[in-house]
């Protein structure tokens, strides 16, 4: 069975640019969550979507936005990139149970 997939694997952007990260959940999972993990720290919750509706938002600025599509895949968008946005962005899917299944992440570097 395919796990959670994320694309791209790595990304290098310049300050002020915009980035779109993509996530495909495990088949049958309707909940997708996004986390940001800065080097040396634990993941921080950004968004959760369930059935295409936002169900939760972490303490992140409005430059961060996301959406979920009818096939439950999801996009995370970040505008006006800052150096501090450099991180590993993790997507996790869940069948609305207690366990989350994480993808391999997208490593974003902002220069």
């Amino acid at each position, binding site marked *: 069975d395919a796990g*959670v997939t994320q694309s791209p694997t790595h990304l290098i952007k310049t300050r002020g640019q915009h980035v779109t990260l993509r996530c495909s959940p495990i088949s049958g999972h309707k*909940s*997708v*969550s996004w*986390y940001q*993990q800065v*080097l*040396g*720290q*634990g*993941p*921080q*919750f950004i968004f*959760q979507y*369930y059935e295409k509706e936002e*169900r*939760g938002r*972490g303490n992140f600025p409005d430059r961060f936005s996301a959406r979920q599509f009818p096939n439950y895949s999801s996009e995370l968008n970040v505008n006006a990139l800052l150096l501090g946005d450099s991180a*590993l962005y*993790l997507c*996790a899917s*869940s069948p*609305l*149970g*207690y*366990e*989350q*299944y*994480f*993808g*391999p*992440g997208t*490593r974003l570097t902002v220069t």
Partner: protein
Amino acid sequence: SQQGEEDPQALSIQEGENATMNCSYKTSINNLQWYRQNSGRGLVHLILIRSNEREKHSGRLRVTLDTSKKSSSLLITASRAADTASYFCATVPPFNTNAGKSTFGDGTTLTVKP
């Protein structure tokens, strides 16, 4: 600030020894979960313990939960070099029926020397 805080930040042991990691949290929880992460890759779910449980086992893993002290521990017995990774605890708040809004600590980096 992070809900969970792992202790120690780093742990180095010999293969075959046991490794114990601790996690403290600040507010009430629905459940607490432990994850493993290898070299900055995706997280792997290890074990979940609910707020009304005190201990749980899975293979070489043993997790305890003390809600009165707001703390949990993860014990890995008979460690192997392949256990080298970072370990995170994550909490899910009450009335939250899913783990999609987990709050993670900053992790314990475990190194198991062959």
